[in-house]
């Protein structure tokens, strides 16, 4: 497809504009940035999980070669530095406010997880800072660690005065109606599942380079953030008391985030604070071990599920009681993940008249837990889709047909769920049917028999998911406890020569916005794609923005761009009408040209652009020079992508090894701008989901030491762990945004874990295995077979 034509518009798999710099080593990540005269920071971290700090002796460290400063919790407290914030507050079910304990950027009185920040060294070199950190002597009075989530409520008190180590005790739905449904049910399905704790592991570790300018009293902070404006807001308004106008946050190329780079962390705050004190630039780069210890972790739920079916196997009620491990402190959006992004999704793609959920947000002496790809929705999908399979097994139905029976019918939209959300549109059966066809569901029995001949046990597993994304409506966010608005902004600037710069408040850290957003502009304005520049990640260049997470960039940010383009076209029509001596109402814009209806008079987009900046005869009373428009877009609703994923596995009963032999999925993301990028997002999400289901687990020992703090022990999916994937899409267009798009970034990670575990359980059905927890490691699978065989022999 030739470049520079509208063929690069919506629906084309345009090769990415950003690729070249990454492929040639010219990407510019935070650790690639250096400032003249910069110092290096290193953090002394707690090596015990729970303790009061008796003393922090820094004299020896302070005298070491190259050391410029050593700071402790005392120093930041004496300077009146604020703590990290909780960005989301829910109300307890008894009506009281949740508990929001302080979260200092350097621990002063107590440490609450291994990795907690105790002191900061600033030195002339990174090696010197690291050596000095080893010389800091911290004396602790150890307290009992609280590691086990199930018993956390009865563990040692982690935060002063916070009863039962419970940050909040929240509910949603109709408890009485759900109890009645369970009471009257023909079948009740009970299942307790554990959503294993994960460590996000974007390949680029977190880093920050901050430069304080004493003359201007201003800062430039380069950071590996998904969310530069929010970082600026929090660090300025809540932590350091700096006018936002004095702080420029730049998120250059960012090497993946997956949620873990949404928040302001202690390290950036400490470096910023110290840069002003020392009047020198400071650089900090995490090594992988620090990333494991201190990046916000993900998932970590225990969900107790009760599902009620009537005599026709229709679901009539669902109750879910969840314990969510939030760790030693509340990370910024930790509260939102198990509540707003989880409880509200419990209806899945099913018509369930009564739902009730109780979620307790628990403190433990482990690293803070927050949003990780999918954030709450994978947990909801996992418990629901595992229960769907358990229910189908219990009533003797094919799992695909049991799902089909309970789908919200196509003509029921808009559909009001029993847990607050209203789905605008969807059509779930064709997605299921397509996925079944792609995997050759009908031929599975034959394949299973073939595997058995080879001594292997084959299984197939489904997961039909829904997610709420395009995060989103500020009103809903506010009503549910959010302390931020969730809209997006865009500026579309047309230059005199007709090149276009789009300034978006979203941030790309792998998602390909430079290309997708440019396609949108190309489609709408008819400008060749190479003349469109997408600008993001710099608070001094971008008006404002809420960053990228929650599969929101296109649905919210893209729509904001579309709205700004509308305004550009509207103004262009007025300019064209003036130039062509026609009525505004008679001017049409199509294929990059402004034309007067019913005549051959026309002006190209480029001519209009030039005229806007060379307004020699503009009627200034009704037409301003220039061609640049801003839009802020706050959606009316979430978007609701949905789909079915099917995993096929082969289990080696002699070792317990699970091989993923096939994967098929059919998703509805609404309209697609760039199918190639969308498919890539799905592949990546499945990769992380397979990781969760088979390989990954953050393991703390009883003392609260993280045993999986490197790639030697934390199992990252490698190329040979994953299958080739069949990915397809069907479309129901979102009804409430101009583009009809929904979002695709998290679907794979949301849908895939239950599909895979359902497949493994299916494979082990001949042994009588009915339950298996994540990750389904070889030993766990082997043991499940042994245990089931022993039980059968009894």
């Amino acid at each position: 497809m030739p470049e520079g034509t509208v063929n690069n518009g919506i629906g084309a798999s345009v090769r990415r504009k950003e690729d070249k710099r990454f492929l040639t080593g010219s990407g510019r990540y935070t650790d690639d940035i250096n400032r003249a005269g910069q110092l290096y920071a290193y953090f002394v971290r707690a090596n015990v999980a729970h303790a009061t700090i008796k003393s922090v002796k820094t004299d020896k460290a302070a005298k070491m070669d190259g050391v410029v400063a050593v700071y402790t919790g005392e120093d930041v407290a004496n300077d009146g530095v604020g703590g990290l914030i909780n960005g989301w507050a829910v109300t307890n079910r008894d009506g009281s406010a949740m508990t929001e304990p302080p979260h200092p950027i350097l621990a002063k009185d107590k440490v609450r997880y291994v990795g907690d920040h105790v002191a900061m060294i600033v030195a002339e070199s990174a090696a010197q800072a690291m050596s000095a950190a080893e010389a800091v002597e911290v004396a602790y009075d150890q307290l009992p660690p609280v590691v086990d989530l199930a018993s956390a409520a009865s563990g040692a008190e982690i935060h002063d005065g916070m009863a039962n180590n419970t940050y909040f005790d929240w509910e949603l739905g109709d408890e009485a109606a759900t109890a009645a449904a369970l009471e009257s049910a023909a079948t009740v399905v009970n299942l307790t599942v554990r959503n294993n704790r994960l460590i996000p592991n974007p390949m680029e570790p977190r880093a920050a380079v901050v430069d304080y300018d004493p003359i201007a009293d201003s800062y430039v902070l380069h950071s590996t953030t998904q969310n530069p404006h929010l970082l600026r807001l929090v660090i300025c308004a809540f932590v350091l008391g700096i006018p936002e106008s004095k702080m420029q946050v730049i998120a250059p190329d960012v090497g993946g985030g997956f949620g873990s780079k949404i928040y302001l962390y202690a390290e950036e705050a400490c470096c910023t604070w110290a840069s002003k004190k020392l009047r020198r630039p400071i650089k900090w780069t995490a090594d992988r071990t620090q990333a494991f210890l201190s990046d916000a972790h993900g998932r970590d739920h225990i969900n107790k599920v009760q599902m009620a079916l009537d005599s026709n196997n229709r679901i009539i009620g669902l109750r879910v009681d969840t314990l969510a491990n939030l760790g030693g402190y509340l990370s910024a959006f930790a509260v939102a993940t198990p509540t707003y992004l989880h409880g509200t999704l419990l209806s899945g793609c099913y018509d369930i008249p009564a739902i009730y959920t109780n979620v307790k947000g628990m403190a433990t002496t482990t690293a803070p837990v927050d949003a990780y790809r999918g954030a709450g929705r994978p947990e909801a999908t996992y418990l629901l889709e595992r229960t769907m399979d358990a229910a189908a097994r219990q009533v003797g139905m094919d799992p695909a047909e049991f799902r089909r029976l309970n789908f919200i019918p196509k003509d029921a939209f808009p559909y009001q769920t029993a847990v607050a959300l209203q789905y605008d549109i969807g059509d779930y059966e064709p997605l299921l049917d397509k996925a079944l066809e792609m995997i050759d569901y009908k031929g599975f029995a034959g394949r299973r028999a073939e595997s058995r001949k080879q001594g292997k046990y084959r299984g197939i597993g489904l997961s039909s998911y829904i997610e709420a994304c395009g995060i989103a409506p500020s009103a809903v966010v506010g009503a549910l406890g959010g302390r931020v608005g969730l809209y997006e902004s865009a500026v579309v600037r047309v230059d005199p020569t007709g090149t276009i710069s789009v300034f978006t408040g979203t941030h790309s850290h792998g998602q390909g916005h430079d290309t997708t957003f440019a396609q949108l502009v190309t489609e709408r304005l008819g400008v060749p794609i190479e003349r469109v520049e997408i600008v993001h990640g710099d608070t001094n260049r971008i008006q404002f923005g809420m960053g990228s997470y929650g599969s929101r960039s296109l649905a919210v940010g893209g729509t904001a761009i579309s709205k700004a383009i509308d305004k550009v076209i509207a103004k262009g029509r007025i300019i064209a009408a003036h130039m062509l001596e026609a009525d505004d109402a008679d001017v049409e814009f199509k294929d990059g040209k402004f034309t007067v209806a019913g005549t051959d008079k026309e002006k190209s987009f480029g001519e209009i652009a030039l005229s806007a900046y060379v307004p020699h005869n503009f009627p200034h009373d009704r037409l301003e020079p220039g061609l640049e428009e801003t839009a802020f877009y706050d959606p009316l609703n979430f978007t609701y992508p949905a789909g079915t994923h099917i995993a096929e596995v082969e289990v080696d009963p002699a070792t317990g090894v699970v091989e993923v032999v096939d994967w098929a999925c059919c998703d509805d993301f609404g309209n697609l701008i760039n199918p190639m990028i969308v498919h890539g997002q799905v592949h990546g999400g499945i990769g992380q989901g397979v990781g969760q289901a088979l390989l990954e687990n953050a393991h703390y020992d009883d003392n609260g030491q993280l045993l999986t703090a490197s790639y030697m022990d934390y199992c990252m999916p490698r190329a040979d762990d994953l299958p080739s994937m069949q990915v397809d899409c069907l479309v129901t267009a979102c009804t409430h945004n101009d583009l009809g798009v929904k979002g695709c970034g998290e679907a794979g990670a949301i849908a895939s874990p239950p599909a895979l575990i359902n497949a493994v359980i299916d494979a082990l059905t001949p042994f009588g295995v009915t339950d298996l927890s994540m990750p389904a490691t070889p030993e766990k699978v082997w043991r499940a077979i042994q245990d089931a065989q022993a039980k059968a022999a009894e």
Partner: protein
Amino acid sequence: MYATTYVKATDVADAASRLDAADDGKLLAGGMTLLPTLKQRLANPDCLVDLAGCDLAGISDDGQSIRIGAMTRHVDVANSPVVQKAIPAVAHLAGHIGDRQVRNRGTIGGSVANNDPSACYPSAVLALGGTVHTQNRSIAADEFFTGMFDTALDEDEIITAISLPKPEKAGYVKFPNPASRYAMVGVFVAKFADGVRVAVTGAGEDGVFRATDIEAALDADFSVGAIDKVSVSADGLMSDIHASADYRAHLIAEMARRAVTACG
């Protein structure tokens, strides 16, 4: 990494004298384990003596055995026609150590001297009844591996080559740790005219060991089925977050079966 001094020795004698001169010198024989250890500041040697210039790489067929120079890289063992012909199981083993980048730098001498309990090579050396040659003496494999990360090497003693007797047939199968890809259990089976030797890596609390029960069973009947009669004990096996001792015991038998199959 702490500050240290790097020297490239010109021959084995030079390496030994430089090691002797250092307070806490370490030999660099590829560095695939040593350098990560140093990066994590888990060791603080004052001197690194690189053996890369000591002319210790090379593979020869000595008739009854093959001799592999200590600084021969895994990639070169894997691709060696000599090894592939004489003991294909060793070529296979070398071709599956770590990843390609590790195989491009890691050496047999480095691996054997380190005696990591999860390393592959010690199982081959032990199962084949190999001999570890140093600048001073030759040490039989049965005497060489003395415990986890522990060998019979004296301080300043340098491995120069490893001799591996040619078996009638041999097979090596490993079950990798899913995270690190080191052996969680690796079993090397070697059948000689005078008996079968079986060595297990990745599983023992004291590092590589001979599975004498399996050896006896295979001596009596060299078949996959023979192993079914052996009950592998979990005593003395490692237990960690990746695998319990019980599971390792099970895998030893299973990998032994597969190694026998691999013998062809």
